[in-house]
């Protein structure tokens, strides 16, 4: 089982690294870090470090998530549309193993990308003289988990839909997931039906706000990346929550993929 999943994952990695769009995204992410150099000049000196870190981390989260959606909606779909899946699922492999293998390959690519983004960010921070501390590592881990959850969301939609619709759905879930607490808070004053809808959305959509600690506002105070607030136990719990979502979404994707006819 592990060997088959690894074979699919390795092949997916090979496939993904040949997608030129990824290199464009890589350039954009590095560019965002360079942008922090410009923004720094415009900001008050006390905020320099926070701005540099926030732009870098937001870049990892944004570009990582967009890449996850892009890979998630295309890599599984193209297997079916190009019929490459015919020669694979006719081998002694279970379809769920194929879905997990595709996801694992994507996760590998995304992990490398997050690593490169993080390296670019720390490089830029170091060049600006901003101290690179443990809190940055925690934030990067959280952004990495968020990217992996978003990839699972995309692959779930891709298991039954076209890339266009899957992309729309995944972007929608990502956007809602990013503002889940705000939605719930805003719905407090609304009618019961809206309140109920917001509650349902909060249950059905992963709370991606958990992973976006940079620039977060808590009780009116801007916490940014704060060692006190973001403890390693917080990172661990948030990661466990992310793993739960990944497992659930992949299980659903596997069920849907299992029921498909490959014509």
């Amino acid at each position, binding site marked *: 089982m592990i*060997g*088959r999943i690894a*074979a699919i994952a390795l092949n997916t990695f090979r*496939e993904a690294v040949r997608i030129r769009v990824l290199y464009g995204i890589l350039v954009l992410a590095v560019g965002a870090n360079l942008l922090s150099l410009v923004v720094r000049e415009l900001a008050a000196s006390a905020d320099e470090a926070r701005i540099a870190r926030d732009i870098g981390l937001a870049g990892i989260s944004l570009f990582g998530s967009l890449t996850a959606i892009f890979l998630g909606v295309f890599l599984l779909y193209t297997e079916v549309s*190009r*019929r490459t899946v015919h020669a694979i699922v*006719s081998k002694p*492999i279970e379809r769920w193993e194929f879905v997990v293998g595709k996801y694992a390959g994507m996760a590998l690519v995304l992990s490398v990308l997050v690593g490169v983004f993080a390296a670019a960010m720390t490089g830029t921070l170091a060049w600006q003289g901003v101290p690179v501390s443990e809190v940055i590592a925690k934030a990067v881990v959280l952004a990495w988990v968020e990217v992996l959850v978003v990839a699972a969301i995309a692959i779930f939609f891709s298991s039954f839909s076209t890339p266009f619709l899957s992309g729309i759905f995944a972007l929608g879930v990502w956007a809602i997931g990013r503002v889940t607490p705000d939605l719930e808070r805003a719905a407090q004053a609304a009618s019961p039906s809206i309140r109920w809808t917001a509650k349902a959305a909060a249950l059905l959509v992963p709370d991606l706000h958990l992973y976006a600690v940079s620039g977060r506002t808590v009780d009116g105070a801007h916490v940014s990346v704060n060692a006190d607030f973001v403890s390693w136990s917080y990172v661990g719990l948030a990661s466990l929550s992310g793993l739960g979502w990944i497992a659930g979404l992949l299980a659903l994707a596997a069920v849907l993929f299992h029921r498909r006819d490959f*014509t």
Partner: protein
Amino acid sequence: MADGATDQAPGGEPPAIEVVGLCKTYRTPLRRRRVEALRGVTFTVERGHIFGFVGPNGAGKTTTIRTLMGLIRPTSGRAALLGEPVPSRAARARVGFLPEAPYFYDYLTVGELLDLAGRLFGLPAAARRRRADELIERVGLSRARSQSLKKFSKGMLQRAGLAQALMNDPELVVLDEPMSGLDPIGRKEVRDLILELRDRGKTVFFSTHILSDVEAITDRVAIIARGQLQAHGTPSELVRRAVLGIDVAVRLPAGADAGPLTAGATQVRRRGDELALTLPADADADAWIARAHAAGAKVISVAPRHETLEELFLRAVDARGAEGADESAGGPSPGAAGAPAASASGASSASSTESAPEAAT
């Protein structure tokens, strides 16, 4: 078993392929119209045979094969490969499959493709390398080993597809249109490979529209049209044994009038001083030859004309066009319906197939 479309061996070993009452109904995406791709297909393929699965476009060949390989779920009916139910991993582990017009990851080399296939079959690394080397050599792709599949021609892709289908040294090989895209030399090589597999005790099930290939190498043939089996048997059993006519060819003396010799002929073809014609099956050939000699003609050949597989194929497909006319013949499976020659007894004389019409896909 619902009809006579069986290829049962007396031994206790389960057959290589067993398909019983297979039905598949699709719904069109927008109008949700029902399309019956398979309507009660039943047949059995015994081990060690080469089995040709023939039918026009849209007949249900590929749907049947994809159902066997677990790519499509049947609406009803069941199938088993080597005694293992379909779909199951156990069945697929012992089967090699070449999809129709195969698409592979075009960024891989043939060696990498075979390595991937070997990993999925659970072969250890050394066995994968050894087997890949053997197969690349066997299908004639040694010189293209370092090229990515993107640069492969259609024929080369087909060879790569055959190689990946054989990575697990399968007991049963299922090939969907294996000769498609190959030139005559490539087709012959694939035919030779199929025969070699049979000689090694493997069962080969392949679909094709090239009837000359079917006649040349198959032990058994099934013809499918509109989702129903039309005929099933050995090629010689299937074609009509009765003489359909007498083909004669003569060389006429210069300036001779062919008119007196063509009287009563069903077909007349003339090229230069050569006259070829087909006489009715009950014509007095001796009398005609005597007339030809009297006219100064030299007889080149006289041969009885039997039905070819191509004619049987066209007849089977046409018969299905008259929908419902044949339904009385079978039991619950429509596979028996209209099997026009399946019950023909004995073997006909070897029939020649002059052409391999692409139209009969």
